[in-house]
């Protein structure tokens, strides 16, 4: 019994890493500009579609490089066409604007790149490997591509952390995150910073999209998978990068475990037609968190002053 549960746990944690990657994009933008970017999921899909379709014409590294370029152009377009006109609007208006951007990107991506299921082949090993065969009968089954995704995610977070802490631009980003006006008054150009943040978030989306693409194939549902990043954020706190990582791991592991452990119980108790608890578990967990600890695990306490 312990073996399968451990296996689920590990699988869940590795999926959680992917949630974290998507959530990371949200946090970056939220920290720097206070915009709650609903379009992050659409950006993930768009980036993944770009890589998948471009790699049909050229070697994968070129396709990725080109996709990075596309994401930077996209960031510029969003800044220039949308955000610039909505400066000083309420957060909720900006949120709805990103909802519009999300719809536009979903439609645009599928019009340009097509709407079938595409494959991204990064040359990752596909065959599952077994570990700890001495401890458990049959060992534990692990998907190596997920393991690689986890490593990439770790590298990415480390890079971002260094970028934020050490470089000049990173310091400017933190200043903007702290206080827009103060940052502006010491001569930090806000629009450049926002452009930068959106571009970085776009690249994070690209990485997340490729990882998801390897796992599920590149298709429209990626855009919805990315919605799972929202409960991750609630759990971790909107402004915390470690929070996004830990939240992702908790949600990933939690929903898989809930499906395996809680699922059969619920099916028996309420006479359900199958499980599928995964679909809402994360959100309801987030809802409970909102009721008892709205700032999340690592977020700053929300204090309102009149």
């Amino acid at each position, binding site marked *: 019994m312990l073996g399968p549960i451990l296996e689920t746990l590990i699988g869940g944690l590795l999926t959680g890493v992917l949630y974290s990657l998507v959530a990371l994009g949200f946090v970056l933008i939220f920290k720097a500009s206070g915009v709650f970017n609903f379009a992050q999921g659409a950006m993930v899909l768009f980036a993944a579609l770009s890589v998948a379709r471009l790699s049909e014409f050229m070697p994968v590294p070129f396709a990725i490089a080109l996709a990075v370029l596309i994401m930077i152009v996209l960031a510029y377009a969003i800044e220039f*066409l949308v955000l610039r006109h909505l400066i000083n609007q309420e957060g909720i208006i900006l949120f709805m604007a990103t909802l*519009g951007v999300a719809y536009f990107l979903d439609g*645009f991506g599928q019009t340009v790149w097509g709407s079938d299921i595409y494959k991204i082949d990064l040359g990752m090993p596909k065959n599952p490997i077994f570990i700890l065969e001495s401890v458990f009968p049959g060992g534990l089954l692990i998907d190596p591509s997920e393991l690689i995704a986890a490593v990439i995610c770790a590298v990415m977070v480390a890079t971002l952390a260094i970028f934020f802490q050490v470089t000049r631009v990173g310091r400017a980003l933190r200043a903007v995150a702290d206080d827009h006006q103060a940052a502006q008054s010491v001569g930090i150009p806000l629009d450049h910073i926002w452009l930068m943040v959106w571009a970085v978030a776009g690249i994070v989306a690209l990485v997340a999209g490729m990882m998801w693409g390897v796992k599920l194939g590149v298709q429209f549902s990626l855009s919805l998978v990315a919605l799972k990043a929202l409960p991750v954020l*609630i759990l971790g706190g909107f402004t915390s990068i470690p929070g996004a990582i830990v939240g992702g791991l908790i949600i990933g592991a939690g929903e898989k475990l809930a499906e395996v452990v809680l699922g059969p119980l619920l099916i028996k108790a309420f006479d359900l*037609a199958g499980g599928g608890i995964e679909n809402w578990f994360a959100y309801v967990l*987030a809802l409970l968190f909102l009721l008892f600890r*709205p700032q999340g695990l690592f977020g700053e306490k929300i204090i309102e002053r009149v």
Partner: protein
Amino acid sequence: MFYREAGQFKTSYATDMAIFPIAQDRWFVLLAVVFAFIGVPLFAGQYLYTEVLIPVLILSIAAIGLNILTGYCGQLSLGTGGFMAVGAYAAYNLALRVPETNIVLVFLFGGVMAMLVGMLFGLPSLRIKGFYLAVATLAAQFFLEWAFARVKWFTNYAPSGSVAVGRIELFGMPIDTPDRKYLLVLALTVVLALAAKNLVRGRIGRMWMAMRDMDIAAEIIGIRPLYAKLSAFAVSSFYIGVAGALWGFLRLGSWEPLAFDINRSFQVLFMVIIGGLGSILGSFLGAAFIVLVPIFLNQLPYWIGIPLSTATISHIEFMLFGAMIVFFLIVEPNGLARLWATAKEKLRLWPFPY
């Protein structure tokens, strides 16, 4: 020249507080309603009823509901689809288990059940707001969608998971033709819209708006947030639930939970944004806009002679809606309703604008 309130003096408090204080407005609304009841059935065909009029009216009710919550009380909700599903399934179960119930009562029951569920999921709004609340309502959406797909009792153990309504009757008269369905929906819409118009200009509506504009200030002048927010959730979910029941019974006839998925939530939210946040008229305009644009888009390729696949059209629809939302938020945050108001202002001065 024609639209001018000069000479219309308000001589009593009652006239001062009328829903439509200007005579021209009153006449216009009255004429529109009379036209909808008597004029439209004279020429409308099957297609116009089932594809345009009925969806627009039902979704207007949903949009009014969401507008009360989001536009008037300032609480963003992405759970509209889920609450519509509650209305639809509650109505289905009442009609199934107590077959002799009057159909209007069935719809209202759908609304009441949605109201209870809505208040439950509205509880977090007392501690959180903005996009935090959006996530909370997203939880409602996914949980409810799942519940109706999985709990067999709701669907009366239907093996396919989809439910179908039987014969619909009102006072012994079968509601089976599109024009009868239309008239029933229209009657309900008029009653609900008038009720909403009345609510939002009264004490409770002002309470909601105060909450929206600045919750802390509202609390200081003596508005209880618990009461204000939960009442907004209750009324809003009631409207959405009734709309869901109508959508299931009179528009679809048979449905599965997919009919009320998250895209429905977004659709209604877009209606509210495009129509105008905080406007009952805007809910109608937004609903009409969102229903008509796809129909128009589907026809367009035939007219200009470029054949497009349906998939491409639906993607273009996505793009167009997205662009529209951004456009409206930037250029006209108050939506179509504001354009209408501006037109009225212009009309007031016409033909001598100075």
